[in-house]
């Protein structure tokens, strides 16, 4: 993140030039909003997808591991450009907000109005608290290393507790068919999905013999480690894509 340090005072634009650069800002903001809804949502839906779509996929092991790990990618890449080149600490919040806008529109119009699934069965998870911390961390530290370690970890560790207030009530037990189920499992059984048989769920696959059933914190800490690495990796991916090179041929 080195920059040429040539402290020189330049005057801010005024008059027409100020209006012009502001108009350019708005154009870029509109462009970026749809870009990140479209691209981050596609990336997210095809990597986290099912864990985020369905209430009966939000388990203690895979959901808090996979979601932050795949969710920290675009935020890191966008921060690498917006902070490094513009000192704008909003890359993570912008990406996650865009993702949620796209997600909510789809859950309502594609799942509910088209195919009659109740919206509470397809509630998305939120990564916004982690994104806010990630942006604030980068701004205050101005350091890739500190943001990757502290910010990346916070992004992963905050995920489960951020979402438990939304999803805890779906984990209330019910007696059904001579067995114990959660309300979430019952959604999966009752509300018919032709392409999502129960066995397809990748949930609760560990044995947990020695850890006193503390599955979610373990998954979160594992995710924290991976998010640290993922953040740094995607920071450089973001930088690489933001090349300004012109080629003589392709």
């Amino acid at each position: 993140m080195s920059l040429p340090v040539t402290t020189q005072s330049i005057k801010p634009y005024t008059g027409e030039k100020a209006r012009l650069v502001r108009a350019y800002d708005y154009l870029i903001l509109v462009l970026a909003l749809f870009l990140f809804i479209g691209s981050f949502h596609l990336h997210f839906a095809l990597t986290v997808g099912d864990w985020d779509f369905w209430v009966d996929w939000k388990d203690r092991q895979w959901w808090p591991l996979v979601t932050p790990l795949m969710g920290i990618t675009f935020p890191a890449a966008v921060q690498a450009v917006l902070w490094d080149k513009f000192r704008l600490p909003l890359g993570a919040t912008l990406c996650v907000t865009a993702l949620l806008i796209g997600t909510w529109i789809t859950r309502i119009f594609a799942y509910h109005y088209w195919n009659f699934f109740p919206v509470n069965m397809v509630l998305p998870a939120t990564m916004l608290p982690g994104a806010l911390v990630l942006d604030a961390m980068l701004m205050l530290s101005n350091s890739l290393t500190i943001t990757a370690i502290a910010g990346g970890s916070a992004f992963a560790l905050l995920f489960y507790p951020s979402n438990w207030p939304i999803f805890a009530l779906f984990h209330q037990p019910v007696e059904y068919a001579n067995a114990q189920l959660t309300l979430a499992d019952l959604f999966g059984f009752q509300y018919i999905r032709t392409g999502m048989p129960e066995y397809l769920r990748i949930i609760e696959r560990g044995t947990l013999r020695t850890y006193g059933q503390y599955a979610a914190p373990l998954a979160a800490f594992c995710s924290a480690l991976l998010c640290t690495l993922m953040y740094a990796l995607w920071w450089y991916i973001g930088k690489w894509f933001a090349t300004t090179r012109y080629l003589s041929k392709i």
Partner: protein
Amino acid sequence: MKIKITQWVYTLGLIILGFGGPVQTALAHGEKALEPFIRMRTIQWYDVAWSKQQFKVNEEVAVSGRFHVAEDWPVSVPKPEAAFLNVSTPGPVLIRTERWLNGKPWVNSVALQPGGDYEFKIVLKGRLPGRYHIHPFFNLKDAGQVMGPGAWLDISGNAGDFSNGVKTLNGEIVDMESVGLLNGIGWHLFWGALATGWLLWWVRRPLFISRYRMLQAGMEEVLITPTDRLIAKAVLVAVPVIVLAVNAVAVNRYPNAIPLQASLDRILPLPALVNAGQVDAEAIKAEYSVAKRAMVFTVRIDNRSDKPVRIGEFNTANVGFINPELPAVSSQAPATAAVLKLDDDTPVRPGETRTVTVTAQDASWEAEKLDGLINDADSRVGGLLFLYASEGGERYISSVSAAVIPKF
């Protein structure tokens, strides 16, 4: 030509307008998707029946029946270590309230045994009014969806009347249609408002060109003000504190929350109903005449029961071929019209072993895309052969299969 152009313009108009005239609801639901050898030689459905086909929102309807898991399971299809008995519906227009396999209730997936016989029942409750064509079917892990026979259901009433109350173990009754919805929306709005505030805090000032230019000029301190730093510190402290606090509240509020349940049910097959031993039928050879759309089997019948038996039906992939001489029999309702012809329809006497030629000729081979079998790598036909005792009406079922030789 004129009509064709008109149709195209009409379709284009519909696309532009987004709506159109009434359409006859589709009868089929992609049940021909899988290769014929999978549909014929995995789950072999029979005796599938609906308790009723006209009912109201909130009323329940049951579909019950039997299936045999073919012994001659195709080698390229993974064994049914995990399978899920499902229902094809256009979305959850009905909800599934109960499901039974061999008399046991089950909600998860199950491991099936090739050669096993099973009885099932699914209870559904009307949710959205309409006329729907519904099939029971099996999701087979890594193999696909093997459909059972379909039926039309008419659901009348008002969608707004639907209710789905469920009692939790704590004694609370929740409405599945709305439980947790407002709470979820509320939390998304809360965090969304904070995020929007953070974004607006930054985008209200000149952004890209201005900041890039100032940063290049080394005027970094102008870009991040002390107030910005104060707010960021507040975010860094307040957000984790809020998260942990509201998490603690949720943990206390739902102390009995349990993890998602993910067991695989183990339900043993019934005592043999198919290939049960008293009357054996074995397909020795099968020839398919492409021109006549006819499958001709050579079948050896070994009657070890104490009554004479006759072949009544051959059923494969939900297409039934009925011996018209025994009109009352069918493993499906309503009976299909396809005809089964035998070169020798006289009853096979007790103790007799006889080889007969059975011809199943019908356009269904083509319409149901079963004739594609001759182009499959695994070109074996399979199905259930139903034999009936001439007196007393006992039914003997054999799951038969044979390699197919095409006759072009």
